[in-house]
């Protein structure tokens, strides 16, 4: 049994849905960022990223496959010659969705979907920083329980000693009485 596509169904028929998604992809590659509803943005992201992956391969077969979705040859040319080289080092995650809140009129949740233009270096810094923080946290945790256990042992030992000291004292008191 075929697995249904994730996300909302768009339009009134499968053909209308394909047309909506193709138009959205064309506009995204033409303008770099588009404002649409969250549901459409979430459906568009996997399609657009697959088209960019094809554009990165760049041969005539992949170009014809992209042309079956994006019908505008000038947009496909722009995608293959200008957009794809900027993603040469990026292993996926070419688009970004930012939520904008409900639209006035029908309160539909809106979003901006855009092609990621930032360089990859910023992301690498972001990855290394949490790793260092996690290591520091692990070290802190290993030290902290050791200190706590030592602190717990010390009072217990003191209590035990005091109890032992108290019992003989009482016993001696009784013998004296």
């Amino acid at each position, binding site marked *: 049994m075929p697995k249904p596509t994730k996300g909302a169904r768009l339009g009134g028929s499968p053909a209308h849905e394909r047309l909506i998604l193709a138009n959205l992809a064309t506009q995204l590659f033409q303008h770099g960022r588009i404002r649409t509803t969250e549901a459409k943005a979430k459906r568009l992201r996997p399609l657009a990223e697959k088209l960019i992956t094809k554009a990165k391969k760049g041969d005539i077969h992949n170009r014809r496959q992209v042309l079956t979705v994006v019908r505008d040859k000038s947009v496909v040319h722009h995608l293959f010659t200008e957009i794809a080289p900027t993603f040469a080092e990026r292993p996926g995650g070419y688009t970004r969705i*930012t939520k904008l809140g409900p639209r006035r009129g029908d309160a539909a949740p809106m979003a901006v979907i855009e092609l990621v233009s930032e360089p990859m270096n910023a992301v690498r810094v972001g990855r290394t920083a949490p790793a260092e923080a996690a290591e520091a946290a692990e070290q802190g945790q290993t030290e902290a329980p050791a200190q706590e256990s030592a602190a717990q042992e010390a009072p217990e030992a003191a209590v035990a000693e005091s109890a032992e000291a108290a019992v003989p004292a009482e016993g001696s008191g009784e013998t004296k009485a």
Partner: protein
Amino acid sequence: MAVPKRKMSRSNTRHRRSQWKAAAVALVSCPQCRSPRRPHTACETCGTYNRRQVIEPSA
């Protein structure tokens, strides 16, 4: 076609309608401009999300 057998009493109507409640919108303060905004959403006042300019500010 199924039709109601009895008139709905005023009490039942009012008990049902007493459960119509509006929920307060969850808000957090924007790290950029300190104005209240919805969580996980770009700020409408300054147009930033995660200190990155996403849209032009409305004001």
